[in-house]
């Protein structure tokens, strides 16, 4: 450890040291149970041919248990997290993660249940999944839900494979998928992986789909249109019914990216808008903690005509007289098959169902209302003062649960970029919004304040932006060189890519 200097915070002075560098030969934490039963320790070569055995042990760390705990606790303090402060990351729905959900997910009956347990001995787990399917079906307005996809992106791929199976079943083989130019990057990536060609649709001056451009591009070679509504600009596409009609007339399906579902729970339903396939991010609207980049889950809800093709197995409720039995149904001959092992991210289902039960239908509806209230209030606050001058709202009208500002005037007039503003926000104790997305807004800042944030945090955030802009009017270099107080300052990302160092050099050291 280096000595702290007058200009370094203690966190900064605590230089990064990996667990491998803390390793001391001979130290250990684990104490395993003995073989037991008076059995002799047969040499491994007598059990497995020597040429199939490992010769050199993996160079894992040799560290005592107290040192492991201290190491990871220290690392944890080098993270910013939602429980510490405001996290208005657009399209990520960083809402409070109730601790009740962690408690019920950890119950042995959930956490220690083997996925291959006979359904007769897993009735509670299957019933829980069934209840979640039913709840998501009601919220999305579509009759069938498959919980299997592991994340939004896998839900997308599942949806596109469903479109493929649906068309093939009708003897058709369209080759194109339409996505708006505002779409999240996973959309086009998923389209390619499903073997389709991406065709971009333009955005109109309201931030919605350019219906004329859609008319031009739609034909019977279109398998599907992928949309999120409200879209990535936080704007509800008022033409959605007309759009759905155009796609359906041409024989295509409508796919709803549920990333922005938090705006409309209990207010409007993708099924009622004409969508055939919806994925739901349980780690966004339904409070599964993000975990620093997973786990999540991306269940899909589908219309009746897509139902025969959903992944298998599917949880079903069987009734025989008084008896109710929940089962895993594999007998779905038109199914696209599996996307992953076993039944999906059950631990996430437990948390999300606990959340839905806690809020209830009325609470979910109110959550969306308050998310929209918070977004509009913060948008209003940021339309005043210096923010209003340097950071205009892209597509200025009432927003849904999020809105996008453009940092273009700020860059032009103050000489600081959106990136600089974001980095300076770190010094003020805020996580920055999503930056440089959506792509069609220059120097974009995408802000989603969520319903669980109190008004004073929104006010404080607006005031921090004001201060940073004021500071930049005087001395732009302050923001340009920010942050100053974080565990490390700006990092050389280009260097990291040019000469990648992606592991500690143990075994492979030259």
């Amino acid at each position: 450890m280096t000595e702290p200097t007058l200009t370094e915070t203690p966190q900064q002075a605590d230089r990064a040291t990996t667990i491998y560098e803390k390793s001391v030969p001979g130290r250990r934490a684990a104490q395993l149970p003995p073989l037991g039963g008076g059995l002799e320790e047969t040499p491994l070569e007598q059990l497995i041919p020597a040429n199939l055995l490992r010769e050199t042990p993996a160079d894992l760390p040799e560290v005592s248990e107290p040192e492991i705990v201290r190491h990871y606790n220290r690392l944890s303090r080098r993270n910013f997290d939602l429980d510490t402060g405001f996290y208005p990351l657009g399209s990520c729905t960083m809402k409070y993660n109730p601790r009740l959900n962690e408690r019920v997910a950890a119950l042995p009956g959930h956490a220690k249940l083997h996925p291959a347990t006979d359904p007769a001995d897993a009735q509670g787990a299957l019933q829980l999944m069934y209840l979640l399917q039913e709840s998501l079906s009601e919220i999305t307005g579509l009759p069938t839900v498959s919980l299997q996809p592991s994340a939004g992106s896998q839900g997308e791929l599942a949806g596109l494979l469903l479109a493929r199976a649906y068309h093939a079943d009708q003897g058709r083989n369209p080759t194109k998928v339409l996505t708006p130019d505002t779409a999240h990057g996973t959309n086009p990536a998923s389209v390619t992986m499903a073997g389709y060609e991406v065709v971009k649709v333009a955005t109109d001056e309201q931030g919605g789909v350019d219906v004329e451009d859609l008319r031009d591009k739609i034909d019977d070679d279109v398998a599907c249109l992928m949309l999120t509504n409200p879209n990535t600009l936080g704007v509800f596409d008022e033409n959605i019914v007309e759009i759905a009609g155009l796609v359906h007339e041409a024989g295509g399906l409508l796919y709803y990216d549920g990333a922005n579902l938090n705006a409309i729970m209990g207010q409007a339903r993708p099924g009622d808008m004409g969508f055939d396939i919806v994925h739901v991010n349980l780690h966004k609207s339904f409070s599964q903690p993000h975990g620093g980049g997973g786990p999540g889950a991306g269940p899909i809800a589908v219309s009746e005509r897509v139902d025969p093709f959903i992944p298998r197995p599917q949880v079903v409720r069987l009734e025989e007289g008084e008896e109710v039995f929940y089962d895993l149904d594999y007998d779905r001959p038109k199914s696209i098959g599996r996307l992953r092992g076993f039944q999906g991210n059950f631990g996430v289902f437990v948390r999300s169902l606990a959340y839905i039960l806690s809020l209830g239908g009325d609470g979910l509806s109110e959550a969306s209302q308050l998310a929209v209230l918070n977004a509009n209030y913060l948008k209003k606050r940021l339309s005043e003062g210096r923010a209003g001058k340097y950071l205009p709202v892209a597509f200025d009208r009432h927003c849904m649960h999020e809105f996008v500002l453009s940092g273009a005037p700020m860059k032009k007039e103050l000489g600081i970029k959106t990136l600089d503003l974001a980095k300076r926000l770190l010094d003020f104790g805020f996580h920055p919004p999503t930056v440089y997305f959506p792509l069609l807004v220059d120097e974009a800042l995408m802000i989603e304040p969520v319903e669980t944030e109190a008004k004073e945090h929104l006010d404080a955030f607006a005031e921090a932006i004001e201060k940073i802009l004021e500071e930049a009017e005087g001395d732009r270099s302050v923001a340009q060189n920010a942050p100053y107080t974080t565990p490390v300052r700006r990092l050389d990302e280009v260097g990291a890519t040019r000469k990648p160092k992606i592991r500690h050099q143990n075994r492979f050291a030259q």
Partner: protein
Amino acid sequence: MAGYTPVTDPERAEMLAAIGVDSIEDLFAQIPADIRLDHPLDLEDGMSESEVYRLMAGLADTNLDTERIPSFLGAGMYDHYVPAIVEAIVGRSEFLTPYTPYQPEVSQGGLQVMFEFQTAMSEITGLPVSNAGLYEGPSAAASAAYLAMGQTKRTGLVASRGLHPHSRETLATHAVGFGATLTEVGLEGGLTSGEELEAAVTDETAAVFLQNPNFLGAVEDIAALGEAVKAKGALLIVQVDPMTLGILRPPGECGADIAYGEGQPLGNRLDFGGPSFGFFCARDEYLRKMPGRIAGETTDVDGRRGFVLTLQTREQHIRREKATSNICTAQALNALAGMIHLAWLGKQGFVELGALMARRTDHARRMIGGLDGYELLHDAPVVREFAVRSERAVEELLPLGDEADGPAPRLPVYPLGRDYPEYEDSFLVAITENRSVDEIGWLAHMLEHAQAGWGEHIHEHDHEGNPVTETAR
């Protein structure tokens, strides 16, 4: 109702006034009236925390988890002991609640964990490049196929029938989108048929998928099988059980181009199948074609060591339709659990655990294979799982007791007939450090009774109900 929302009525009024609308309803006016939901959601009203707890605990209570019965279920997910420090660390808000580390200056903890994880996975697989994690095991097979097809510009995929049935089915599902064809290679004596493999691999083959140990628990000779793969210029891809790599020759030393697998055995709960993590390791030349997140080391403007997400030009948010994958989830929290477990086991413990499993499994296999009415499905070497054939139909074996007296719990072994019609008479038994020699004895005892029929007298019992016989000792 718990909305977890702080806003009070006066604040609501103040905020609406600031926005310049009369009601929240006005903000939703942009949604056309004909698609506004005109009735409340047909869901129950919200419940108090204590009521939700009781309801969820009631559901959990009906499940036969591994604290209630010694479970010999495996098939890719295993009942290992997860050390207490895993829970303590992954439960910290600083790891539990952040998003993906898009702002590296305030995400050094998570990024360094990724770097340490990548190092650990490279060490155990013997392959120099690792990503920060994928969704889980079988879907990582699809990611590997996508890489192989891009690399070789070929469309043929070949999989051993010893590859996990979920992985084979996941490959088949994705093959439709990838435009790939999937061919299967059969098993002989529990092991992948070298002859069939050689015949199946052609100049059109992008990759061959093997699993070690395979689904029947048998340890394959990956290096020997790999020769036919290499000869045709296809990629050798191996799904591995990470917990066996303390003692088994790592895939990187057997010629594998890619090794991937299900990470659950490392520090993750069973959770009825997820969430867990997948790992994905490869040779150096595939670095820029890898799926998923990768953390890399760099320095900050003052020269301090730090970590960032790197090689992002592979990824969907930059490359969009030309990305190497659509995956943007690293299962970071689950990978952290895996990393802590590996650090806890350490260099020595990781080997000892492999050896402990191999020895207890050998004991269990001899004991159960010697029972009346049972024989081993194959006698290939195994580490922690083995397959047994039964004279009596497996479905009839499973109820632990006479069902005339009411429903009985199922014996926690894996019936192979679920996935292999040809092995309908067989089941898998999995062993971990959690399954003691006494519990193995209990399983043998139950199997004896199940084979004979629950009403049959087959041996004397002592006062604790344990059998007094030769076979079960």
